[in-house]
Structures are given as C-alpha cells and as structure tokens.
C-alpha cells in the first residue's frame, strides 16, 4: 500500500527545507506518494466591501492559479524529476485546519512542514500556523527546523 505524506509549502525558503526532508523520507519508504499542499490563508469571517465580494470568485481562481504556477507545480516537477511520485493540492482557509483536512481526506501517514524563520511580536501574540498545526493535528506532524 502506498504511503502518503502531505508536505505543506508556504512559498518561502522554509518550504524548500520541508520539501527536501519529505523527499529523503519518500526515498527511504519506497512506495510513497507526496501530496504537495499550499494553503491560501483566508477567513470566512473577515470584513469585505461589496466590490471585493463581487470579485471574490475571480480572485480565488487567480490565487489558486498563482499558487500552482509559482509554488506547487515547480515543487511537484522537481520531485518527479527525482523519480518520486507527487501531486499538488491548493486549498483556501485556515492554514492548520486546511492542512489537517487534506491529510485526513488523503489518509496521510504524516504532515511535514518547516518552521518559518520569521518571528516578531504578532506571531508571539497570536501564535503561528505551525504551532496551531502541532497542537490540533490528528495526523503525526514533522516540523523541520
């Protein structure tokens, strides 16, 4: 049975580290599929103008296309070039919730993410997506530093 690993990318260098670790794990496992996932951060409880609402569907499509073209597809292509089985997924929503939802749906054995190097007051105050993921995930999580 194929083992599935979900790799969360954020479009930054930290995502590359997660990808590299997932790639090593997949080689060790052998029969493994990597689900490269990018979550566009979005809340259904933010306030928007009528004009933004009118354009929302269009923007969602654009955001999905951009994430696929700039982050997900190059990562999938790189993994495939290494001889690994991989495919990409883009979702909108809360990063930790959406990653857990994708992993549960896929029946993944593990979620692999990288700790973002950026810190700052806001992240200390509100908590980061990574720590939220670790705290609430029902699937084992590996955080690459």
């Amino acid at each position, binding site marked *: 049975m194929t083992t599935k690993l979900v790799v969360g990318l954020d479009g930054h260098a930290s995502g590359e580290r997660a990808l590299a670790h997932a790639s090593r794990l997949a080689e060790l496992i052998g029969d493994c599929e990597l689900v490269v996932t990018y979550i566009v951060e979005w809340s259904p*409880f933010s306030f928007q103008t009528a004009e933004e609402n*009118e354009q929302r569907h269009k923007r969602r499509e654009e955001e999905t296309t951009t994430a696929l073209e700039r982050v997900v597809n190059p990562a999938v292509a790189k993994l495939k070039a290494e001889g690994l089985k991989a495919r990409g997924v883009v979702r909108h929503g809360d990063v930790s919730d959406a990653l857990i939802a994708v992993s549960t749906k896929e029946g993944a054995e593990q979620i692999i993410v990288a700790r973002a190097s950026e810190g700052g007051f806001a992240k200390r105050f509100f908590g980061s997506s990574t720590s939220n993921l670790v705290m609430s995930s029902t699937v084992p999580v590996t955080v690459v530093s």
Partner: protein
Amino acid sequence: MNYAQKALIAAAAIAAPASAMAQEAGSLDQKVNAAFATATGPFVNLIFAPFPGTSFPWIVMWLVVGASIFTLYFGFVQFRFFGHAIKLVKGDYSDPNDAGEVSHFQALTTALSGTVGLGNIAGVAVAVGIGGPGATFWMILAGLLGMASKFTECTLAVKYRNEYPDGTVSGGPMYYMKKGFAELGLPGGGFLAIVFSVFCILGALGGGNMFQANQAHAQIAGIVGDYPGWITGVVFAAVVFAVIVGGIKSIAQVTEKVVPFMGILYVGASLVIILMNYDQIGAAFGSIFAGAFTGLGVAGGLVGALIQGFKRAAFSNEAGVGSAAIAHAAVRTKEPITEGFVSLLEPLIDTVVICTMTALVITISGQLIVNPETGLFVLNEAGTAIATVGDTSGVALTSAAFGSAISWFPYVLAVAVVLFAFSTMISWSYYGLKAWTYLFGEGKTSELTFKIIFCVFIVIGAAASLGPVIDFSDAAIFAMAVVNIFALYFLMKLVRRELNSYAGRLKSGEIKAYAH
C-alpha cells in the same frame, strides 16, 4: 412638521419669485438648500402623499402591508428559521470544499455596513423627537415584519444573479425583476428593472450619500463649532473620490474593519448608559408602550408616532427597498434560500437591537422635555416636534443624550458618525453604480460618470440643511420600495418553492451540517 405643512412649504418654495429667494439666501448653504427644496419638492410630495382625508402616507402602508403579507405567506419564516440563520452565519452548513468564496458572514456584514449607519443614530433621534418614545414600538414591529421582506428579496437576488465568464457576479432587484418575470412568462419585468434602477440611483445619491454627508457635518460642527457645510462636503467628496475612483481600496478596507468595532462600541456604550439608569428602564419601556397606543403629547399623536416609527425603521434597515439584495447577491452558495435566511437577521440587528438602543438612551437621558404637571411631552414653538434640552434634533439629540451620561462620548460618536457615514457612502456608491451600469452598460467612462456625480452630491448634501435633504432621502429610497415590493408580489411564489424544497430536505437530513 407634518406632511401637509411640508407640502405647503415646498409649494411656497416653488411659487416664490427667484429674486426674493436670492435676497433671503445669504450664504451658499441657504442658496443650495433653497434650490434643492425647489427641485425635489414635487417628487417628495408625490411619494409622501397621504390617503385622501387622512394624514397617513400611502407609502408607509405600502411597506407595512408588503412586510405583513410576506410574513404570513412564508408562515412567519423570520421566527421559524431564526436559529437556522444563526447556524448558517456561523458556517455550520458551509461546505469546506467551497472555502475561499464569499461566506454568509461576509455577505451579511457587507450589507450591514450599508444599513447600519446614521439612520440608527440620527434617524432614530428624528423619530423619537417627533413621534415620542412610542415611535420605538412601531419601529421594532416594522423591523420584525421587515425581516420577511428582506428574506424574500435576498433569496431572489442570489437565485437570479448574473455570473460572468471572468468569475465576477452581479445581482439585485433589477436582475430578478427581468429574469424572474421572464421565467413566469409575465410581461414588464424589464420595464420594472429600469424604473427600479432609476430610483436606486436617486436613492444612492439621497439617503446613501447626501443624508450621510449632512449628518456627518452636523456632528462635526457640533464638536468643533459651526462652519459652512460645503467644507465638510469637499473633504468627504475628496476621500470618497479617492476610494471609488482612484482605487485606493486600503481606505475602504480600513473602514470596513473599523465600522463593526464602532458598532460594537456604540451598542456597548448604549448598554452602559441604560444599565447606569437601570431604575428608569421600566419607565422607558412603559413610555414606549404607552406612547405607541396613545401618542399623547407628541407631534402628530398616535399616527405621528406610528408613521415616524415605520418610516425610520424602513429608512434604517431598508427592508423591502432592494438595496441590500445587491450586496447579498455576491454570496457563494448552492442554495439561494440560505442567503434569504441569513439576510433576515439584518433588520433584527439594525432596527430591533441598534435602533432600540438609541431610542432607549434618548428616552432615559431626559433630553425630551416633559411637563412635570401633566407628564406629557412639551412641543416646540412651531408644534412640529418635542422640545428638547438645548433645542437639539437629529444626530445632535443623540449626541446630547450620550453626552449627558458619558461626557466624552460625543467625541467617540463623532468618529463613529464619520465612519458610519463613510462606509454607508461607499456601500451605496456600489449599489448606485450597479443600477447605473444596468441602465447604461458597463465601461470605464460610464462608471466614472456616475462616480463623479456621486461625489458632487456629497458636497450638496453636506451644504443643504436637514429638512430638504432628509425628505429627498426618504422619498428616493421609498420610491425603490414601491417598485421592488410590487415585483416581489409576483415573484414570491418562486421563493416559496425554494423554501418548501429546502425545508423538506433539511428535515429529511439530506442537507447536513458540516462538523467543524
């Protein structure tokens, strides 16, 4: 001032020789005011014409009857599906796979930013100032009935919206009039859509624009001292111009985020004042109920209280008007009826909660002068409204009521008023623009023309005095309701079909809540 008196004044303004008016009109404000009253008088008189032999405006009856019929036709939908509406807003029924679209919450808050505004602060003060606390009772009743009107129009707005190939959506009464009538094989849908669009543009320029600028100026002048209204108008016009024409969305985004907090702050302050005077809460509700059925000692008596209550409720929550349906149309849902359920919360939040808070604060604060011997309200010299401490009216009355309990609150209120006015103007510029593009087609020149006209009217609104502006605002918005409710009577069976289907599937368990 009753409508007969207003009509007389308007007629006198029309008949007065231009030279005499010019002599009297010393300042620019007065000149704008006089010209405005002359230009809009006949339209205002037509919309607010009373039933022959009575002082009851036919338009108020039109709204009340419409809301009552929708309430009965849909079997008190506003109460039966209230809990379900809350669940929908919380996202309990939102498919996680649909995430990333416009949520019910966003559609609701967007529409609320257009309706929660000066009507809740200034409009209620006008109603209570003329009709006494009893007007509050009729306002609440109109709010509860209006929930059914909003349910009907917003369901249709989503069902018949336009979805363009690029993924954008446009909707509103003009679309459901045209498509809905065509679906039923009825003639005249296209004509109604055009008439509605014309009134929507006038409503956007009146209530959605001039009234806001006017009351924002009144509040600022109340804080910093009197100065010409056109100065406020020019500043507001410049900022609105920057947002709607210049594409500086950051200003609108900031406002959209700050306004809900101002709303919470406003309701919070109201609660503090009400709780500080907890011993008067019983008496305040007593005067609301007593005034609702007797109307003793208020201008216009019982009918005056009733008219003022219904008028202010309609102006504040816009149920039956069709404006908010334009904002709700953008929601992403597979079931149009769900947005109907969500939208029915709007009159409740706007009128039943926020307007009642304002009315209670004014009643409790003692700003309305009562004759200690008779216990009845004292009318002002003209006999047109209840005399108030400091002779205030409109937003100044609300400000004085808050200031009597929390001395610094008028400053917060001034900020709230400016932000409410600004967000309402941005929302209504969108509603007006949708109607404009429906009539004249989409395109940069067409859109820019409307936006410039909109900004010019901000200056006019801030410069004109309260009377003509408030009358024109009411008239234009009520004119939208005339066409909209007429169309809703024909289309409501389509909504009932949706309602029965959805209610059946909800009961059978076919429609499930998603676990979060």
